[in-house]
């Protein structure tokens, strides 16, 4: 195709950007450093003295100053939402033992794989032996936890809950984030209870709806 444009690189149109003047003062570096230092100093001392003498407001500080939207955190706290997912707790039965039956649903559902359960059998002669297990160890690594709440959804026994209203505290070492069973059972819900609203119907209770070994005869 024939065009009127000449061969060679295309001509650049527009105003050229002025290049820095490479004179002796720029190339020796020292005068430019002095200029830069003078500018930094002028700004610093001016800002600091205006702040100290109250001649100028600091928008950064002011936007959080008293009476505007500042919460002095440890003394004042904002209420958490009703469904806020905090640190886990293990709910109790009426006799103080954990409701957990060590079914491993929560540790299976956990996407972060932060729950570790060692199930154990009840001793011989206990009416629950062979019927349900209990957790000999129940460990949650709160540092791995992503607070998704899937464990709570997965639990068939309402044994694990995240309604403590406590957010994970910053500890000094990784070991302190490993929450063992005793610690998890010591937390209370936000209503102060360690039980669950759903009553448990133990085998042998008159309210127990299901089939028992005695009924089933096997």
């Amino acid at each position, binding site marked *: 195709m024939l065009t009127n444009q000449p061969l060679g690189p295309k001509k650049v149109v527009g105003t050229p950007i002025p290049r820095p003047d490479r004179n002796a003062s720029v190339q020796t570096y020292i005068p430019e450093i002095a200029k830069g230092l003078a500018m*930094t100093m002028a700004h610093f001392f001016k800002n600091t003295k205006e702040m100290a003498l109250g*001649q100028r407001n600091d928008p*950064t500080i002011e*936007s959080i100053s008293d009476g505007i939207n500042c919460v002095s955190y440890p003394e004042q706290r904002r209420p958490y939402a009703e469904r806020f997912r905090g640190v886990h707790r293990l709910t109790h039965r009426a006799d103080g033992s954990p409701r957990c039956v060590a079914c491993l649903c929560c540790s299976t559902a956990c996407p972060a794989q932060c729950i570790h359960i060692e199930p154990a059998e009840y001793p011989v002669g206990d009416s629950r032996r062979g019927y349900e297990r209990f957790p000999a160890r129940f460990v949650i690594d709160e540092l791995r936890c992503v607070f998704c709440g899937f464990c709570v959804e997965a639990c068939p026994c309402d044994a694990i809950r995240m309604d403590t209203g406590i957010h994970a505290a910053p500890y000094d070492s990784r070991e302190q984030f490993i929450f063992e069973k005793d610690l998890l059972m010591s937390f209370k819900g936000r209503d102060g209870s360690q039980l669950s609203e759903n009553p448990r119907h133990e085998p042998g209770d008159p309210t127990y709806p299901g089939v028992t070994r005695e009924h089933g005869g096997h």
Partner: protein
Amino acid sequence: MTLGTLFLLSLAKAFTVVVALSLNIAGLLTWVDRRQGAILQDRVGPERAVVWIPKRIAQGAVAGPAVLVAGGALALFFFSDAEGVTRTTRAVLFSHLAVFVTWFTALVIAGRIKMRGVKNSFDRFIASVGDPRRIFYVGLIIHAAIFLSLGVLKGTPAGETLRDFLYGAGPFVFAFSVLFGAGYAAQRFRHERAGFRLIGLLHPAADGLKTIFKEDFIPPGGDGFLHKLAPFVSFFPVLVLLGVVPFGDTLCFGSDEQGKIMLSKLLATVPRDGICPTSTLDAGSAVHAVRLQVLDFNVGILYFFAMAGTGVVGAALAGWASNNKYSLLGGLRAASQMISYEVTLGLTLVGALMIYGTIRVDEMVRWQAENTWGIFVQPLAFFLFFAAAIAETKRIPFDIPEGESEIVAGYFTEYSGMKFAMFFFSEYVAVVTLAALTTAVFLGGWHLPFLERDGLHIAFGDKEIYAQPLSHGAVILFGVLAFVGKTVALCILQLFIRWTLPRFRYDQLMKLGWRKILPASLVNVLATGLVILAIQSGGPAVQSLMAGAAQVTQWVIAIGGIVLMVWFVRFLLKPAEHRRVLASSSAQYAASMGGTRTARMGA
């Protein structure tokens, strides 16, 4: 001197140096660094680091020391009668102190009134002055008037009367101003609790404490022992370096028959020549000299090179022991950089050593006091030394070993908690140490122009135009204050360099070190040798010319220093327009509703 006294004295000196210089100034540097920070938490942190104190205790904490200081000044006047030079010194010191405290208090009060508006007749009186700089000018004029009239009337009966008047009036005005200022500050506490913030200095302290409780992490594949050792190896040298830096002139005490020091007998005056001559004492007693320097070393500056060279080991060890490629790169960079600049650091001082003819740091300062400051005889070496010193501290623009944009955090990538903090401390303390050393070698150490060991002697040529004898303790005190002031100024200059300059590229750093600074320092050595040779073979005419030039530099420093200070205070006191900026939408909303319960904003 017994071993016990020696031990106690050394301990006291080490404590003074470490606390007064490194930790205080390092804390201040951190604060100033924070002040420059653009991150919200850096700006808010110092504001939020607060200890709440009940109102009464806060008032006591403000008024108590003021009552003690004022009472002390009055007690000194009433219960100890001074004669001769001590009387003059006290008259001069207390009158200047009184004038200073008065104008300073008035200025602060004027500033507060400007901030919160006029409320009563006293406020109206202060506000009627207008521009607060007028208070400063009036104070300056009174300072100059006292200074000049004491000098002009010296020796005449009128001068005696004036001195006695100042000797009596000084402590009273001083006590009144201190008490008035403290009382004004104490009645300002209106709420039940007062926040103790210390201009935000609690924040660096809290940061330092916090790191002690943080997790101490050692990378699984790393060398545990070397990983623990490295922070100590890099912290130790910069701290002990302060040992050879003299922070004041030699103190002269009286000593008993056995030659033991008597700490209660500080000499009233010492003559101008010699360090601690015995002639001023009563017959039979001797004089004991206490150098204000922790380590009284005869190798002085060589110890500095030895210790500064050890700093490399810490960074290199940290890089090696972390089992991390970024750490290793950082350690290698640190080692090569510090070794390269070590050479320059040593060679720039060779010129200074040739002129001073000594390697003892306190002798260097004494040479500068007798002749002229090192920066005038070795200007090129001063700049080269300062640049190499910044490279030694591994700070911007030479912070290649920890270049965040390239190698995470360099040699301390794998460090946490207090061990990480120790690398940071060592960096900040190195800033203070190198500033102190630069002050001692190039900026005259404790020396102030015209301040001799027996008082102020302003001379022009051979003619002394103003003489004001001062007591020994006052002269030493001024010296220590001058040294600290110069050190702080150099520290601040290093911080400003950090905030101003971008980081060098690695090859630029090496080129600058080996192809520019090093040859320049060699040329400096050659030039210094030639000039010394020329002066030595020049005869008495050249000698007297040099002496005249040395005196000119003293005048330059004195006048330049005063002009700079007055200009700076004038700049700091310049009134500015108070504009309220509402940054956040919630603040704008609150303002549109006429403010909140605690902050009324005019509707």
